[in-house]
């Protein structure tokens, strides 16, 4: 493939991502009664809308082609933008909460980390093996089939591709490839770079909302960016879906910690949950944790209403409902997902977990997870810590119940799964460090 063709494919990815941002902005604004969302939730809502649109096209028997995808996404954008203009006054594209943080040295370092990861992805030096064996292969099949290739997924010898996994990522690859007219790996890996950028953006906004000193915010963002880039490069994370779960967790925790009088926080929580659920199978459980915590918080505060329930619950249900129905219809759920509890494995699992924390590509950052129980005490970090601990508990449960060799399972997956949790630990620790002189609050 020529350099020009690859650059064109990259341009298509960036344009599709930009279109998703605008689309999600209008969709969330409409759903929120005209309240305009922050940048990252709008973006995630756009990705979700494209996912639902592709699912809908397939349900209607429309093959995914360059034109059906272009017309479908374009029409959805025009409809949403038109309705937004018709019913609500358009304000700025993105309305940050509080004062917009000024660009600083930490932002520059975060940009450098992002550029490093982008370089590793673009030059194919950090390609996740699952891009070849799972996500990318599925995307190729979807392109050729003109939709999710359920016949391929249902064949028993293709079980290694995790046929029951949610399909957002291969759909994004397939849509980009159809629009570009080619399957250009360096261009497709840019979706991971965009995910990393979104993670940094939502973290930057969250740090700004915590009222921390500028130096602490800058240091925190730079630390987070460098740590994630280190693992992203070293453990070949371009093309995988683990950054998406990290993004869903941080975006969801940020929404949980907001006490906006407008409906934005609920919609952003629902969007983060839907995004996580569409990304990976463990994201479906994360979506449950997010909505469960969100609704529990509303009940405890006496704020639960039908509208709140719908705003938090409808986005993930719109993703999880069709996923469950299609998986059941095509018999895709795998018997190897869970098994019976076997405590005799705990010793071996513990050793494998310890070895995973120490993989060289992590450079020791996962040990920060040891702070999570402490971070639960502090108001600023409690949601990040709670979600990370719940996810960690889920992974441990799966390891002690898996019907496959647990040591192999832990060693081959846990270092990647740590990427879901480490950003939450870093952000929580920075927020607490930045407020230490005042001590913990119990509000």
């Amino acid at each position, binding site marked *: 493939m020529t350099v020009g063709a690859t650059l064109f494919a990259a341009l298509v990815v960036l344009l599709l991502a930009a279109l998703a941002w605008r689309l999600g902005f209008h969709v969330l604004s409409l759903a929120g009664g005209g309240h305009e969302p922050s940048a990252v939730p709008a973006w995630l809502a756009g990705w979700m809308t494209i996912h639902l649109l592709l699912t809908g096209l397939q349900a209607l028997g429309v093959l995914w082609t360059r034109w059906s995808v272009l017309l479908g996404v374009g029409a959805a954008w025009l409809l949403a933008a038109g309705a937004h203009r018709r019913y609500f006054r358009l304000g700025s594209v993105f309305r940050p909460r509080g004062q917009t943080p000024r660009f600083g040295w930490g932002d520059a*370092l975060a940009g450098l*980390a992002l550029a*490093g990861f982008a370089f*590793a992805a673009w*030059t*194919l*030096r*950090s*390609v996740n093996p699952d891009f*070849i*064996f799972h996500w*990318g*292969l599925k995307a*190729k*099949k979807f392109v*050729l089939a003109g939709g999710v290739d359920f016949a*391929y997924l249902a*064949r028993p*010898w293709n079980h*290694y591709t995790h046929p029951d996994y949610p399909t957002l990522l291969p759909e994004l690859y397939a849509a980009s490839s159809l629009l570009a007219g080619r399957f250009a*790996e360096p261009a497709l890996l840019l979706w991971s770079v965009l995910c990393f950028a979104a993670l940094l953006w939502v973290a930057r906004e969250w740090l700004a909302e915590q009222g921390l000193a500028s*130096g*602490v915010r800058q*240091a*925190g963002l*730079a*630390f987070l960016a*460098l*740590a994630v*880039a*280190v693992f992203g*490069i*070293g453990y*070949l994370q371009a093309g995988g879906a683990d950054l998406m779960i990290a993004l869903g967790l941080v975006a969801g925790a940020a929404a949980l910690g907001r006490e906006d009088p407008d409906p934005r926080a609920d919609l952003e929580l629902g969007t983060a949950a839907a995004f996580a659920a569409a990304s990976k199978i463990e994201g479906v459980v994360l979506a449950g944790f997010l909505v469960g915590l969100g609704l529990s918080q509303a009940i405890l505060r006496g704020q639960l209403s039908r509208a709140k329930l719908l705003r938090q619950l409808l986005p993930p249900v719109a993703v999880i409902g069709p996923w469950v129905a299609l998986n059941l219809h095509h018999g895709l759920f795998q018997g190897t997902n869970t098994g019976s509890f076997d405590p005799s494995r705990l010793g071996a699992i513990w050793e494998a977990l310890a070895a995973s924390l120490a993989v060289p*590509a992590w*450079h*020791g*950052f996962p040990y920060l997870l040891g702070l999570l129980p402490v971070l639960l005490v502090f108001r600023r970090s409690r949601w990040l810590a709670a979600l990370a601990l719940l996810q960690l508990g889920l992974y441990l449960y799966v390891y002690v119940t898996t019907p496959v060799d647990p040591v192999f399972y832990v060693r081959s997956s846990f270092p990647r799964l740590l990427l879901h949790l480490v950003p939450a630990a870093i952000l929580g620790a*920075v927020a607490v*460090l*930045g407020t*230490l*002189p005042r001590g913990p609050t119990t509000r």
Partner: protein
Amino acid sequence: MARRAAAILILAAGLAWAGWAFAAELARILAPEPQATRPLPQRWEPDTPEAREYLTWLEEVDRTLPPGSTVAVAPRPLPGSEEFFLYLWTAYGLPRHDVVRASQPWTWSRADHVVTYRLRHGDPGWHQLLGSPPEQVQQTLPLVPEPILEHPLGAVYRVARP
């Protein structure tokens, strides 16, 4: 004041830690890697010479096979789970076809073609791969002995079904 200083010190140490690790990872991917250091498929990446060569060969295989073929992958004996990883690379390189493993009787029995990797018809590695005594290999997986495509990396054979 002391706690504020401690917080600044911890953040500075964290930044130094992350900065050092980032520099180490960048240096690693920028360093030129000696050629042919990854002969086994599990360690291939899309930019490693072995993977590029194999995927290029599979493009030729793809053009040769009838669309929608069921293709069994038959590599020379490879250590550990390497045969499985070669199979995964083959599936990635042949998306128009259904790719199965010659080492799994319940899947290769459906194959109409076989693509080999550093293995030729009649080589002793076949019985090890198929788990059959050498004299029964041809009965187990009846190949038309003349390949329909040959390459230094392997060959494509048609399965002779009765």
